[in-house]
């Protein structure tokens, strides 16, 4: 900041001097003697341009020929030699103003991206020897207890041992609803404690905590470069030498064939070429756009591990979903009850009693649907029949609860609902009493997620699942997926993935969305591996290219939108910068553009491109 202020003062002084030198003789109606004029302009030139000249000299001794500083020096010293003192000073001044704006814009964007990722905790309050001490989070070891007061950021991952509070997780998930935590629950570093005082037992060292992982990931994301970035780097390598060679030819060749023109005229035109020869606008604004896009995505709770992935997302043609945990919640719930008893609740109650001692997820969901407490005195003997169900005595009645096979074994006629999901049949004293249908629940935003993907011109949305066909197809139909492959073993998923990869167009990309737990090989095989519910899951953060911190599949279309907006900005910048430069080059060669236009084509375009790039950060 200090450096910038100094530079601003320098520009101000030189600018005022320049105006004075131009205006005073005009107002006073006199002309400066030639030597005075030269001396004063040279002094101003030295004030505003000394560092550029010095860098140019220094770099040329190091064999750096195509250097911005050198080119500016040659261009302005050339103007001085031709007697255009005012022009030399003005161009240098204008250039410095442009550079100043450019560095201010870059600094500002750097800061706003940094603040977005400002989730690094500064300290931790550790309980040591009965006293609270403030230490660096890195110095806290696993097993120690830390106290987090309201308003403070949770410094390390751990478990609440006392107190309860609400947490603001928005820095990690983009989710604005605060989350409640109580005794015994896990908390993740980076969240802000809003209301109560909590004591947390640390479970991971800082280096392995969620915050450290996310920061590391985002900071390294710019090392994986996008195609557009590589293109620009390559382009820059040829652009500068080409323009410089063109400038030399322009100065030398036309005077040989067009004798009418003065030699100086062609040199002036060549000098304007030199000013435009830096590819700065492109070299700065393209990575900045991608960085902004990645920053904008992380604000929404989506971590993108590299510019290349952000770029690839825009070309997504096929999105393949895992079912459980991705499109569905992965927790089972009672969806339908068909009772021959007096009420549905009665059937549910009997089933809940019979399944009282089972820890199977199916039984858990029945207990949950029942909601009441099981009175153990009403329950007699319970016999578990492996692979079939249970036989229990409830209120001195024999209750059977289990699958079809149990009913067949006991010779009870039952009703088959022919529906997807798991069916628990219940019989009382040898008579069929009805069934309970249990299904995995589809996530609230799953259908919207698929619709939005279709609207974003994704050609196929496919689901892969290990579940049976009825269940899988039902979910696929409800959500409007293009296709579903069911009953797949892990190896089968990879095989289907290969088939789908062969179906896409050469430029198109295939994204796989999973929960990162059992699908590492498929995540790796896809062009873009997207893991859901990354918050707190190390496996997902490791294996995927894109991590969605929340459980919402609708974030996929959000990040695709950010990706496309970023690429649009990148394209705008490339076209804009190249077009302005090309126009000024042509006009310059024809003698229609002066050095001012050239400086605008250099730094002016850079500043505009940077400002445009910053829009990527605000992508919604």
């Amino acid at each position: 900041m200090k450096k910038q202020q100094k530079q601003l003062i320098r520009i101000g002084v030189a600018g005022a001097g320049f105006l004075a030198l131009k205006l005073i003789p005009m107002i006073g109606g006199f002309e400066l003697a030639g030597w005075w004029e030269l001396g004063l302009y040279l002094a101003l030139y030295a004030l505003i341009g000394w560092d550029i000249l010095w860098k140019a000299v220094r770099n040329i001794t190091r064999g750096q020929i195509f250097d911005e500083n050198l080119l500016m020096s040659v261009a302005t010293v050339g103007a001085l030699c031709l007697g255009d003192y005012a022009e030399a000073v003005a161009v240098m001044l204008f250039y410095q103003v442009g550079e100043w704006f450019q560095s201010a814009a870059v600094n500002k964007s750097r800061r706003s991206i940094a603040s977005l990722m400002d989730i690094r905790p500064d300290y931790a309050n550790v309980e040591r020897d009965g006293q609270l001490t403030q230490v660096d989070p890195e110095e806290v070891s696993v097993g120690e207890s830390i106290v987090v007061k309201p308003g403070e950021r949770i410094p390390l991952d751990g478990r609440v041992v006392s107190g309860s509070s609400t947490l603001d997780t928005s820095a990690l998930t983009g989710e604005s609803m605060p989350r409640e935590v109580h005794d015994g629950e896990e908390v993740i570093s980076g969240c802000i404690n809003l209301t109560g005082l909590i004591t947390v037992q640390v479970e991971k060292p800082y280096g392995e905590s969620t915050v450290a992982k996310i920061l590391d990931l985002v900071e390294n994301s710019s090392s994986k470069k996008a195609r557009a970035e590589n293109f620009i780097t390559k382009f820059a390598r040829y652009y500068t030498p080409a323009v410089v060679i063109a400038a030399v030819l322009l100065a030398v060749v036309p005077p040989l064939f067009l004798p009418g023109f003065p030699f100086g005229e062609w040199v002036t035109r060549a000098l304007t070429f030199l000013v435009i020869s830096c590819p700065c606008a492109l070299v700065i604004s393209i990575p900045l756009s991608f960085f902004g896009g990645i920053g904008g995505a992380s604000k929404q709770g989506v971590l993108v591990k590299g510019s290349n992935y952000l770029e690839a997302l825009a070309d997504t043609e096929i999105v393949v979903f895992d079912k459980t945990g991705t499109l569905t919640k992965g927790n089972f719930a009672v969806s339908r009850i068909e009772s021959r008893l007096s009420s549905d609740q009665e059937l549910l109650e009997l089933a809940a009693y019979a399944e009282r001692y089972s820890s199977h997820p199916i039984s858990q969901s029945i207990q949950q649907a029942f909601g009441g407490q099981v009175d153990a005195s009403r329950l007699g003997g319970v016999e578990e029949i492996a692979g079939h169900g249970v036989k229990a005595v409830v209120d001195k009645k024999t209750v059977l609860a289990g699958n079809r096979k149990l009913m067949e074994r006991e010779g009870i006629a039952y009703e088959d609902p022919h529906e997807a999901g798991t069916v628990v049949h219940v019989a009382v004293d040898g008579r069929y009493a009805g069934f309970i249908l249990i299904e995995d629940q589809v996530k609230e935003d799953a259908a919207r997620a698929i619709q939005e993907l279709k609207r974003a011109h994704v050609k196929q949305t496919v689901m892969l699942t290990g579940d049976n066909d009825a269940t899988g197809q039902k979910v696929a139909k409800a959500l409007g997926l293009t296709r579903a492959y069911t009953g797949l073993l892990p190896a089968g998923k990879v095989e289907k993935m290969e088939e789908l990869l062969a179906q896409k167009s050469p430029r198109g990309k295939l994204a796989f969305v999973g929960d990162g737990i059992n699908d590492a090989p498929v995540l790796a095989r896809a062009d873009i591996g997207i893991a859901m519910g990354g918050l707190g899951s190390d496996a997902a953060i490791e294996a995927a290219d894109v991590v969605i911190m929340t459980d919402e599949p609708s974030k996929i279309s959000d990040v695709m939108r950010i990706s496309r907006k970023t690429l649009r900005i990148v394209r705008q910048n490339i076209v804009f910068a190249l077009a302005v430069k090309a126009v000024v080059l042509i006009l310059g060669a024809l003698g229609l553009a002066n050095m001012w236009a050239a400086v605008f084509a250099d730094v002016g375009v850079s500043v505009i491109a940077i400002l445009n790039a910053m829009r990527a950060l605000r992508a919604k």
Partner: protein
Amino acid sequence: MKKTYKLQDLDCANCAAKIENALNSLEGMTKATVSFMTQRLTIEAPDDQFDQVFKQTKKTIRKVEPDVEILA
């Protein structure tokens, strides 16, 4: 081995690109990336050559952009 260093006074994006190009042509360098946005340099080289490569890296940066400094 892969290590990341912070760079100071990396003021222009083109300079970052130039440093990156120069470093990638160093002998023994597996991969070097210079991020202008995060002002970070990442170098990757075989373990047994790393010190040598790092020394060359410092030298190269001094040559290409004398204003830029590596903060270890």
